[in-house]
């Protein structure tokens, strides 16, 4: 029996497990790692996690709706390779390039969304196949070589410039998260994303266009991945077809760390962002402590599992 209004330690820990982990990490590294607790390092952490942060936004929407997406790393890489190719070949104006990227993002999202919603292919298979197709296609086109279009305005603007002391790249993340927050909490679409993740049958009975919402979720994720691709290009300065391998797993980890349920219906924007930051901060702090990279993976795995364990404990 649940007594309402009574303080419940377990549910408290469960709800705020991410904050505990984050707080503990900050305290730990502040004490043991010289130079960790500085504004400069904080900005550094955010800067290093921008691409994961943006991709996680798409992952979050898909996971809340009850699906999963492991194609966003490939889509983002595709976006960066296309930009590099366009800039290298020249003769294409910015508006046309942007329009082309938007249309392509839409088509890719429509493709995977339709396979899931209309073709009843499980999301994990759909996005696995899609990732394989995109990665393979890029290798065919580039022959595995990076495409160097020189240091253009895009790179200068995103990778070097800052506004109010915050690098422009981080502004992009903040703007994307703001858009994501508004979409998820203030619009009908966002409400339906939660609803179909809760129980799609009830939604169908309520007259909600479940299939349409599912497709829109994949279109959103694809769009978001294309934005991440722009940042990727700015970061690398080249189009590299083998970039971002396995990043989708970091995204899923961040979203789950942020309290989302893989069975759908649950998840929050702010906690996803904190999940990304937690993972970034963990790596950063371990770098300060000179932990060998291989061990960093081990520790990261342990932290993710620990957080998930705390979260999945029943009342």
């Amino acid at each position: 029996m649940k007594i309402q209004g009574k303080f419940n330690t377990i549910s408290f820990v469960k709800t705020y497990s991410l904050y505990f982990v984050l707080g503990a990490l900050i305290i730990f590294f502040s004490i043991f790692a010289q130079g960790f607790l500085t504004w400069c390092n904080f900005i550094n952490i955010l800067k290093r996690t921008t691409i994961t942060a943006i991709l996680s936004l798409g992952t979050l929407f898909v996971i809340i709706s009850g699906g999963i997406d492991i194609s966003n790393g490939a889509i983002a890489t595709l976006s960066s390779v296309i930009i590099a190719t366009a800039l290298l070949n020249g003769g294409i104006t910015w508006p046309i390039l942007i329009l082309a990227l938007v249309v392509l993002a839409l088509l890719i999202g429509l493709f995977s969304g339709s396979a899931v919603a209309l073709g009843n292919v499980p999301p994990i298979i759909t996005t696995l196949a899609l990732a394989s197709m995109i990665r393979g296609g890029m290798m065919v086109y580039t022959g595995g070589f990076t495409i160097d279009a020189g240091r253009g305005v895009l790179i200068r603007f995103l990778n070097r410039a800052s506004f109010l002391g915050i690098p422009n790249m981080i502004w992009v993340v903040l703007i994307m998260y703001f858009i994501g927050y508004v979409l998820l909490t203030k619009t009908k679409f966002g409400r339906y994303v939660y609803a179909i993740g809760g129980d799609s049958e009830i939604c169908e009975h309520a007259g909600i266009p479940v299939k349409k919402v599912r497709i829109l979720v994949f279109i959103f994720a694809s769009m978001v991945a294309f934005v991440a691709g722009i940042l990727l290009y700015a970061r690398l300065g080249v189009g590299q077809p083998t970039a971002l391998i396995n990043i989708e797993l970091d995204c899923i980890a961040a979203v789950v760390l942020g309290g989302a349920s893989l069975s759908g219906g649950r998840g929050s924007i702010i906690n996803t962002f904190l999940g990304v930051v937690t993972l970034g901060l963990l790596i950063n702090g371990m770098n300060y402590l000179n932990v060998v990279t291989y061990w960093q993976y081990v520790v990261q795995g342990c932290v993710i599992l620990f957080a998930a364990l705390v979260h999945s404990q029943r009342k």
Partner: protein
Amino acid sequence: MATILEMKNICKSFFTNKVLDNVHFDLRRGEIHTLIGENGAGKSTLMKILAGVYSKDAGIIELNGKAVEITNPHRARQLGISMIFQELNVLDNLSIHENIFLGREETSRGFLKDTHQIEQTRATLSMLGIDLNPKTPVEKLKISDKQMVEIAKSLSFSGKIIIMDEPTSSLSEKETDTLFSIIRKLKSDLGISFIFISHRLNEIRRISDRITILRDGRNISTIDCNKTKFDEKAIVRQMVGREINNFYVHRETKPSDKDEEITVEPIMQIEAFSAGERFSEITFPVYKGEVLGIAGLLGSGRTEVLQAIMGLLKRDAGEIYVEGQREVIKTPQDAMRLGIGYVPEDRRNFGLVLEMSVNENVSLPILRNLARYQFINRKREKAIALESVDKFTVKSESIEAKVKFLSGGNQQKVVIAKSLVTNPKIILLDEPTRGIDVKAKHEIYSIISKLTAENIAVVMVSSDLPEIFGISDKIMVMYEGQIAGMFKNTENNHQKIMNALVGVENEDTGKI
């Protein structure tokens, strides 16, 4: 009172099985009309047709005198008809107002505008006398409050007809009282009509204006409670009143029946089993070569008692004796080791691995005996499976066929075969004939009869009363988690059993 709804000549078949045969039903404004009947009588099907969940094969539905087609639940709601299912259709991850206005969110320039709907929700909740914040997540609510959310939802559609499928089955007595007073209020203040599906006669008496009895997909009678006296016993008779003929396999030997003085030791004795609110103080013996039928409504705790015996459900108190020895059963493995076999209610989820073959399913419980260093002795496995298939007349192309391709009846035989490969002394059957055709039912009864001939003790839970009467030696009735009586299966006791089943007091509880 004006008639607002008429359902005429409704027919519905599932495959070859006719579930509704020319059924009539009508509803007046501001009336509470109860539908009763046994499991499989067609109550739920009729109501699901009205709510747009199923489509009818034939017949007419008239709403306020006009024929309407109800193609889906959404359409039904728009027409003012909503159905509240036993397993409540609310989204736990959304708040109260989000649930109530799901699919009808108000927006301005693309953004949600909840304030108005939150206010409406607050108003509806306070009219229902529920003190809850509309923004509360539904997962934090009690079941009774979730039900209120569904009622509020129906009202927000300006619902005129609310169908409730066994709404009280998961409510406490106090919550039931609250629900009933709210229903009465809605009926008199707003003229809302309710259709109730229920089994509990004492509740039905309190709340109904009219009662319609269905049996085997046909109308039996409609009683106007304001005009005629409520005669429980007559109602029960009309509900069941089917000839119990020689469809059931009668057996001659009934060991503990032979002499009135029971000197036979029970093979299993359950002592004072209790588990929270599910059931309490359950004590009964089980004898060799006998069928003990356990009858009870949904939620009476009958299934849970079997699960507790098998160690699938943790009990708070009680002891179990097998052949006079006190035993501890914590897992189904323990139970199987003691010679207790179990056939669960939901064969597709708990009884079978659908993707595996007949052969692999049957051998699952004894795989450890068939394997040496992890390698399975396929020859022996096949031999055992063939023997079972033969003994239980499983019809399958081969024992290598996946069980998902078998008919329900044959699947059920495979589950029974599987539970018997360990050579149990006692076998617990939960709804062994649910959802299978008549011929397969008959074959299952023959199997049960064979088992008792081999001196195995059978405990069978069933919601099919004729079945209980047809093959049990003794019948234990459960009502709301307690034993409402233990009876010998004699013609004279049938009325008493039916009374006990629906919570009507008998002069004697038929203690044996």
